[in-house]
């Protein structure tokens, strides 16, 4: 049984690329390939990770310029061919700007950058990303963003809800998606969503930042362990 091959795409201004690599290595036992956005080609990968950070400074719109970088054409091609893609924070913003995921991430309702732990309700567990979580479980991930308010028009939201494509929702201790538990003004308390096939996940919270017992939490590790298990070819 061959171990999964993971690639982390590094854009100018990415800054959680190392954090993602560390979390992947902890689960995988070997480091992922770090792929510079300008590199000629993307290695064969069972998983592609778009890390957090401030690609191109988040200038113009968060993720907009990275979404148009050459490597993204290949990422889009692979994603459409079924390769799992995980976009964390800025990676989520890139995925929406690249139209791999619907909607956009707008300025937080508070207008401020916000860095803190939040509670998330796991909405779905039948994907490579979430298989190690219990459905409806409440987990703790950190958020750290200024543009994390998920927005999509009514019918898109209806479709996402109808097709069960919400991955995580901001919630309170009892798992209720209350307004108070919504840190950034996201529609329907949405923290993360899947594409139609459940193979592309974008989320604002940072699983890689709570994937180590020394960092006051390990809820994030389950995502990487689940991926490693399901993507071992």
């Amino acid at each position, binding site marked *: 049984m061959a171990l999964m091959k993971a690639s982390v795409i590094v854009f100018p201004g990415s800054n959680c690329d190392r954090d993602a690599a560390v979390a992947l290595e902890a689960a995988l036992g070997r480091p992922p390939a770090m792929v510079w956005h300008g590199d000629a080609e993307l290695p064969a990968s069972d998983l592609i990770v778009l890390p957090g950070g401030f690609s191109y400074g988040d200038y113009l719109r968060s993720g907009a310029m990275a979404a*148009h970088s050459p490597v993204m054409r290949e990422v889009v091609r692979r994603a459409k061919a079924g390769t799992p893609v995980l976009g964390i924070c800025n990676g989520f913003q890139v995925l929406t700007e690249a139209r791999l995921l619907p909607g956009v991430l707008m300025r937080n309702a508070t*207008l401020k950058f916000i860095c803190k732990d939040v509670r998330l309700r796991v909405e779905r567990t039948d994907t490579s990303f979430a298989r190690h979580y219990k459905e409806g479980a409440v987990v703790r991930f950190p958020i750290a963003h200024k543009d994390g308010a998920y*927005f999509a028009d009514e019918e898109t939201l209806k479709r996402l809800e109808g097709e069960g494509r919400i991955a995580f929702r901001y919630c309170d201790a009892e798992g209720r998606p209350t307004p108070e538990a919504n840190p950034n003004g996201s529609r329907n308390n949405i923290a993360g969503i899947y594409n139609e096939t459940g193979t592309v996940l974008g989320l604002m919270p940072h699983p890689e930042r709570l994937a180590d017992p020394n960092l006051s939490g390990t809820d994030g590790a389950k995502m990487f362990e689940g991926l490693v298990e399901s993507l071992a070819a």
Partner: protein
Amino acid sequence: MKARITITLKPGVLDPQGKAIEGALHALGFGAAGNVRQGKYIEVEVAESDPDRARAEVERMCKELLANTIIENYAYELEAA
């Protein structure tokens, strides 16, 4: 030629920045201020003297990068640089 591009949020899209500015204006005593909306303004020079070709070029820039047409509209004026 030089393009002056304004990018605005589509009607109905929430604009927290605009709301905040409106609140601040009221706090400063500008009670009369209302319906504040914030957008972007971008100036670009295109090495293209023919208005039609310049327009086509700017149109594509807006569609492909400058505006996110899911939530934003764009408009522009052209003038000789």
